[in-house]
């Protein structure tokens, strides 16, 4: 099975809504259409279904154009954007999906009931048959509409924002249901606004801008900071996890060229480092043992002073750490545990305190995370006393820096 969209131009009024769009979809593919409002996603779906006719180009399924709405409804399962509100019973709604297969008086027969009930089972609403559509939740209602699409036994599903207005669990459930159907040898083209949802589920992403396909490919190929800026005019940070990618918003930078050094270890600095980097600061960290979880984050985000795993802070590393403290505009002492190995990091913090640029994250009482005896206790107390800002929670760190830097 192959859907071919070839060079289509679609006009609404006098405006070209789609301009020379070409792409192909085969079975087993879940294609996500990403693009800002008004970029032509819905128009694309409506044109493929045949509600709109292209002024140029063709839409072909298995080498043939589909002529009538009746025929299209057998091959395409089109789900419009707005979910209806009616008092029809759930089963009656799903049975409507059998309309293209009914002739004459259009009364559902045994086969129609069987297919409709199976569709309801596939979306997990087996026991909802006699409920009225209007009394269901938004997520349930959307699942009923998906069951209606399934009852049409389409080759390709054309879904217009099936997850809009739904809570996160319903969004995931809906996408899972769609993916399961696609895995049975169908295909789906899904217009969607949630980039993360799209990159988690789609086998292919088409990014649409002004009625043209701007970028096409697998999520990790097309979801890049540059592409998203180009298509959506939005600044985001793209992160990778496993085989996938996800985006987070980039906050308006307040950092400028300011530099912040973080004294951390054992995971106490991760969130702080990310928060600082997102806020636009240049970051450094030290002294850290290689392969420590903070070390991994710090190597990704900025400069670092490190030591091999499980070894003590050496003289040279300590010197380098002190140098970074000197060069930074602010130094953060994270909520780290102190042992004989990283005892010298406390000395570096004390130095920062003397320079008037230390921020202490004092979350866990120090005696609970001190394994270096009385001496460490005393240095910490000293650092705390002379620190510029002390905060109880690491979430407060950006505010603390604002306070310190006088913004």
């Amino acid at each position, binding site marked *: 099975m192959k859907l071919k969209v070839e060079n289509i131009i679609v006009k609404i009024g006098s405006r070209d809504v789609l301009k020379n769009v070409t792409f192909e979809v085969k079975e087993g593919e879940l294609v996500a259409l990403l693009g800002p409002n008004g970029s032509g996603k819905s128009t694309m779906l409506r044109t493929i*279904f045949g*509600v709109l006719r292209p002024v140029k180009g063709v839409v072909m399924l298995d080498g043939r154009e589909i002529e*009538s*709405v*009746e*025929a*299209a*409804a*057998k091959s395409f*399962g*089109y*789900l*419009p*954007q*707005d979910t*209806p509100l*009616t*008092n*029809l*019973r759930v089963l*009656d*709604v799903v049975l*409507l*999906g059998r*309309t*293209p297969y*009914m002739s004459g*008086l*259009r*009364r559902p027969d045994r086969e129609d009931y069987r297919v409709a009930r199976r569709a309801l089972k596939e979306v997990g609403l087996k026991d909802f048959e006699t409920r*009225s559509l209007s009394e269901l939740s938004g997520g349930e209602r959307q699942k009923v*509409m998906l069951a*209606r*699409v399934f009852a*049409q036994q389409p080759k390709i599903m054309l879904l217009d924002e099936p997850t809009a207005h739904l809570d996160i669990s319903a969004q995931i459930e809906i996408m899972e249901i769609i993916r399961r159907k696609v895995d049975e040898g169908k295909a789906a083209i899904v217009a969607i606004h949630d980039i993360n949802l799209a990159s988690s589920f789609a086998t292919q992403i088409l990014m649409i801008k002004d009625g043209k396909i701007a970028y096409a490919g697998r999520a990790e190929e097309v979801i890049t900071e540059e592409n998203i800026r180009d298509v959506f005019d939005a600044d985001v940070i793209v992160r990778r996890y496993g085989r996938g990618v996800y985006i987070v918003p980039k906050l308006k930078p307040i950092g400028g060229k300011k530099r912040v050094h973080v004294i951390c270890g054992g995971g106490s600095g991760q969130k702080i480092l990310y928060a600082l980097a997102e806020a636009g600061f240049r970051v450094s960290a030290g002294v850290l043992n290689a392969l420590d979880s903070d070390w991994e984050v710090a190597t990704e985000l900025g400069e670092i002073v490190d030591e091999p795993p499980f070894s003590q802070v050496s003289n040279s590393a300590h010197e380098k750490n002190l140098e970074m403290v000197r060069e930074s505009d602010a130094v953060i002492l994270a909520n780290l545990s102190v042992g004989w190995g990283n005892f010298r990091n406390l000395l570096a913090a004390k130095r920062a305190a003397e320079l008037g640029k230390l921020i202490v994250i004092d979350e866990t009482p120090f005696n609970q995370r001190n394994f270096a005896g009385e001496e460490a206790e005393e240095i910490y107390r000293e650092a705390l006393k002379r620190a510029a800002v002390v905060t109880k929670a690491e979430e407060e760190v950006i505010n603390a820096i604002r306070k310190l830097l006088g913004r």
Partner: protein
Amino acid sequence: MKITTVISILLIFNLVAILLSLGAGSSGYDHIFKIISGSADDNVRTIVFEFRLPAMLLAMIVGASLSASGCAMQALFRNPLAEPYILGVASGASVGAALAVTLKIGEIHTRIAFAFFFALFTAYLVYLIGTSSRFRDQTYAILLAGVAIASFFSGVTSILIYFSSQSMHEVVFWIMGSFSNPAWEKVYISLPIAIAGIAYLLITSWNLNALLLGDEHAVAVGLNVERYRKSLIAVVALLTSATVAVSGVIGFVGIIVPHTMRLLVGEEHQKLLPSTILLSTAFMPLIGLISRISTSGNLPVGAITAMLGGPFFLYLLLRRSV
């Protein structure tokens, strides 16, 4: 409730309505049995066959046409308050009838013809304006065009009534609706249209379900919405125009009856439409009966249905708010 139960109860209800319509009155119920056994005198025969039977049939035709049309309009407009007169046929027919009376042209048949064609013309006008390409939501535009044209035509009717001072009573009474004589001719005129129109609605009732989902969803399941809407409006225009022409403006039936049945059998039109029709064929003759026996003359039927319609609307309103 199971649909077979509902239908059975409605059939019994119909039987009772028939007996009451034919029997109630001065001569008592035994004359029905006399007619069946062939022992009734001519006087009784005349009353039953010339007056009561055609009036009852007319009431059934009018009830069935209006309630089935109402049902269809409520699905088409996806609005529980939609009614058959939304297309402006009531005001159109009124202008036609008032014109015939004012100009003193012809007798009862001319009036019926005038009312019928004016009603059809109005519906066509409303459709034409409503589906002009400048409107994006045509269903909505038809609704508004109907309101606009109806209010214009009721103004025209008022002026016509004003100028027809002599026969004013006649026009006003016509507008208020009745099943009075000559009833047989009215039956002959409206019955074929009613049968054809209602049959069309029953045959295509599956499509009405699809319309409830909204135009885009209806298209998505393979319904040619534009074509179906066109024929639906044409059929409803014919049905209601024929009804108004023979009985005057009888309001609210198209809302009360479908809604009552909706509460009992739900939205699905394979059940809703037949049961609505059956309820109206019992309901309307009973209203006719009330009109006939309540006073020495005939109380206007439209006035009685309107008086029932008001409280019913309030009931719907209160039911919704809880």
